[in-house]
């Protein structure tokens, strides 16, 4: 794109006594016409995204899916919620192996006992602590019973795994 436009004053000489200074455009139009290309943009849809905590937002996307429901996002991943106790205690069980193991052998092989929920304020906490203590006492007995009943099976299972 180049434009050569020269503007020449015909009255360049010091005689400016004429009322109007006439300017003449001398156009050497050597400019080629530029094709105005229509910008190419892919088709976009509006998509509603539902995050795991139920919050939603819309955005433009090329995917024709009207609603995208995410199961794993910033609301329930530990990296973005470093102080959340709920997420910290959650195991990675994407393949469902842990759940299958628990369905078979119970929860008493967990590394950590399910901790009582923290962050409840004031007197509620005290009451709940009392309740939890009572519950734990019951659970301990259950756990012991569970341990006895599943003792032999566990041995067999571990043997299988070794093979």
């Amino acid at each position, binding site marked *: 794109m180049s434009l050569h436009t020269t503007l020449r004053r015909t009255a360049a000489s010091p005689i400016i006594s004429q009322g109007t200074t006439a300017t003449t455009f001398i156009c050497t139009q050597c400019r080629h016409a530029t094709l105005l290309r229509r910008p190419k*943009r892919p088709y976009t*849809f509006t998509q509603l995204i539902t995050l795991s905590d139920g919050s939603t937002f*819309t955005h433009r996307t090329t995917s024709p899916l009207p*609603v995208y429901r995410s199961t794993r996002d910033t609301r329930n991943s530990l990296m973005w919620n470093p102080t959340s106790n709920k997420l910290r205690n959650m195991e990675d069980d994407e393949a469902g192996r842990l759940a299958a193991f628990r369905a078979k052998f119970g929860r008493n092989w967990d590394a950590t006992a399910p901790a009582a929920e923290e962050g409840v*304020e004031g007197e509620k906490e005290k009451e709940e602590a009392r309740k939890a203590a009572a519950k734990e006492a019951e659970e301990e007995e259950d756990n012991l019973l569970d341990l006895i009943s599943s003792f032999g099976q566990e041995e067999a299972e571990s043997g299988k795994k070794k093979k």
Partner: protein
Amino acid sequence: MSSGSNGARRVASILRPSIAEQRVCKSCQETLVRRNYASAATPISPKPSSSASTTFPVVGPTYTINAGVLLSRPPQITRDLTDFEKAYYFYQKRLNERLALPFTKYFYFKRGTPLDEDWKRKVRERQTAARDIGKYNAYGQEAWNDELLVGAKESEPEYIAEALISDAESTANNTSQDTSKQESIPRPHPRVTEADKKGDTQSLDRALQRTLYLLVQSKEGYWKFPSSPVAADETIRLAAERTLEQSAGVNMNTFMVGYHPVSHYVYNARKPKTDETTGVTLAGEKTFFIKGRIMAGQADLSANTQNLQNFKWLAKEEMAKYLLPPYYAAIKNALADR
């Protein structure tokens, strides 16, 4: 400036104290002096150091220095659109319909699958691939008719969300094998919460579009931001953290933004008070506010040691009702508009 030798100006210039003494605080003066020494390139006039040393014994009015916290909850959702914005975005979508490349259907739907059949039927119905622009054919005879009439609901965000969700539901129902079960997708939560309807100003779930600030009420009935005097050997930031802990409890996950105060408020008492223990006359209070953000938790005044009886989470305009006018005027420009 004018050149007039005004009487008032002359009086003022006599009465006005020099800038070095009044406008610059003591620590800043010391910093200035130190920095001047540090930069050896600049010639140091003896005057600033001498004036700094002479101003030291000159005792101005003494104030109690308070550290305050502007604890805020940022907006949780996007703001409501104005009518103009809704109309604008809608019109741009319809323009886009005829200016973007056509949708490549077979890249997404395999020919002859139930999904493909469902897609074709729906496109025939609404005449376009987009779901959120109503019935509009960008390539037909009536493509010029792309503006909405007054009272049309198509540009509302609620309509768009509903259109998308109902479309997803009908697709799921039409393509699934068993016809007995109806798929239902949960609708988005309302933008106005329970706390908004009840007018519960203590809840953090209210006014999701606004920045909320923590206001506390002292036993005397005055509303203020949590603040308390700065102890010796304590920075303002540390004092602010301590104040927050002492007033609103530890059950909050907060983040103090920076070490500098964002605003300050000077309170001049009617009569200067004299502190019995030190014998210093106090002309009033100066409160410096540090900005804070709350991430999780809730304020709890049950264990406070600052003589507080009540708290509220309020947006900027709502505060004007509770705060004293000079207090609000001092603080309002540090508060977020949204």
